[in-house]
């Protein structure tokens, strides 16, 4: 059977020996050669082979799964020397919780992790196409169906979380700090209620300082989000058009 381990020919700078060897190896033995190198690399039984093809920062150290993005994002072809897409998507598009990444009762503690390390969550999970669906079904999202909506409040008391005066712990600061965490539960309707312009919402602007001077390009390329919160004739909005 043909080897499925080879992808596009990887850059010669990375694995010159194996590529040259592959090109001159009878097909029948190609998979065996790769399998041996792959096994040796993983098992670390052979000191020489264990460095291949992981030299120069590609060694699979015990914390490699936390750092592999630096390698895979830069040069996925090098990874494809040993790994197939299936191995990547087994975790990144998986439907079974990998315990090495999500240990213990991760369902209970994933909230604190997502508040802290969003950039890591988003390598596998999109907020509105993965997180939201489950949050609605279990009732922690305010847009969930009435039959499952939790009676308890998820956030701190309203007086602290959303009422004036803004103080440390107010949702305005928490949203700036990690907007992605908000989006994993809330739909745009939740935000529009207060943050859309007067007539549509409460008129509390969420924009960054100087936003109005740079929004024209965005309006030209996709005006949809502008028009969710502003009427076309909205005074503050005219400068963007």
């Amino acid at each position: 059977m043909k080897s499925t381990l080879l992808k596009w020919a990887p850059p010669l700078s990375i694995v010159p020996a194996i590529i040259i060897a592959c090109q001159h190896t009878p097909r029948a033995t190609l998979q065996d050669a790769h399998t041996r190198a792959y096994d040796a690399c993983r098992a670390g039984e052979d000191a020489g082979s264990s460095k291949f093809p992981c030299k120069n920062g590609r060694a699979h150290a015990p914390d490699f799964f936390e750092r592999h993005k630096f390698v895979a994002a830069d040069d996925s072809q090098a990874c494809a020397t040993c790994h197939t897409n299936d191995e990547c998507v087994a975790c990144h598009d998986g439907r079974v919780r990998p315990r090495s990444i999500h240990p213990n009762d991760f369902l209970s503690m994933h909230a604190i992790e997502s508040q802290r390390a969003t950039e890591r969550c988003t390598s596998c999970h999109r907020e509105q196409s993965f997180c939201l669906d489950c949050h609605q079904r279990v009732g922690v999202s305010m847009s969930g169906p009435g039959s499952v909506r939790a009676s308890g409040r998820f956030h701190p008391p309203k007086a602290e979380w959303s009422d004036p005066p803004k103080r440390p712990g107010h949702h305005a600061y928490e949203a700036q700090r990690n907007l992605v965490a908000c989006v994993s539960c809330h739909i745009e309707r939740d935000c529009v209620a207060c943050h859309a312009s007067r007539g549509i919402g409460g008129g509390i602007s969420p924009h960054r300082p100087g936003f109005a001077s740079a929004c024209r390009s965005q309006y030209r390329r996709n005006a949809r989000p502008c028009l969710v919160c502003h009427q076309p004739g909205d005074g503050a909005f005219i400068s963007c058009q």
Partner: protein
Amino acid sequence: MRGPALAFSLLLLAPLARADSYELTSDTTTQFYDVRTPTGVTVYTRRRLTTTLGLGAYDLLPRDGAHGRAPDLFVRARLRYDADVAQQGGFADPRAVDEFVPGFAHGPFDLMYAYLEGRRFLKGCLGFRAGRQYTIDPLGFWAFDGALVRVTTPYYIAAEALSGFEVRGGLPLSSGRWETSGAWRGSRADVDPSLYPSFQPASIAPAFGGSLESIGIGPLHAKLTYRRVYNTGGSTLTQFANALDQARVYDGTRLSHERIGGTIDASLGDVIALRSGLVYDAYNAGVMQAHASADAFVTNSVTLSADYDYYRPAFDADSIWNFFGGEPMNYLGLRASVDLTKQVSVSSGAYGRLFSINEATTTTSSLPTWTAYTVAPPNTRPFDGGGQLAANYRKSTLSAGLRGSLNMGDAGHRVGGDLYADQRIATRHIVSTRLSLYNWEDTVRARGTTSLAYLLGTGYEFSPKSRVMVELDHAMNSLVGHRFRFMVSLTLAVAP
């Protein structure tokens, strides 16, 4: 369930007639678990079945003897069925207003990938893929239906071009897993147009892009990637329709996202390796991600490293959240890795994560009273920190390890670790164990606990790629009482 599976089988069996070799694979996992309160009340129940059927058909072209240099053509495909039979029927029923969750489907089929790939055409210069495929590049994971062509030149550079349609949830045999963040989309068939205005109808999303990559330039490697995706079809604007604000719909072809990513790597012999990358979001006119990493190979067994990460959220251009004041996060980590023996490796490190708050944003309001009442947080640069320790022991039949982490900051803390071991007995029998202890506190929600968990698993390997595993997972803490997960997984591979 039968229809898509039959169509998929017919589609994929056709190449088998021409293939010199093929492989049929399947992964099936059943998971049974409940989520309970400490008093034993089940909050919700999961009875999940996930199964995939994969096919690889190779050597579709006749061999000419020049192994490794001759043109090569093959097909690979995988279909997934993912069901949770314990979920209430109303979640997927638009008529059940009090239960319906837009976008939820009972047992959806998902064509993960299905493509024809060619390599080494035109004297080794041309490669291509056609069909549904994943891409993994500086812009991250992505999936599209279309074609990708790669040209490898003799001048140290390779070029790729792709065109097609982004894979989007709500379209047939599709999952929204790799859609750009920020847009809640899916099939609105049978959904009342006046309800769920934030839930946008899925429509085709034309996409194109390309990349340039260096090849064979000694210690250097660089890649530049570009991608643009469009949204099409109508989208509801009005979130609260009333007499003054009638339901408005925005229609037409518009940008979804446009991004440019670049990476540069350099290796200086066995001394040091440097990597860096950056992603620029053209719609928001700003850098959304950047990273830099350095590894110093102090000795054959000691590596010292420094990692930097920058992240600022950017969303689909249909999303209102691009215009909110989300601020960036900066991460800096230092670590060391030591191979103590051929079997034992240890890695440890510490990190800091710096968040930003823009005070000016929080005082911008059309309601003057808010400005007067604003109290800026005493620390406008919230800081998180922590560290991790990991160790592996590997011998021919035993793999064991430790993985612990400490994360702390003003949003709370999480500290704990896992001990694990996987032992192979008499070649084919597998025993797997894991012990885990974590303490955590979430200050935003004012909850936390200490959780102890263990896992016991056993399995049997029929062949190198076929096995069955049975696992029991048990977690105990004051928030959920006892949580069990029972899992059976079956992996099969058939090849001539």
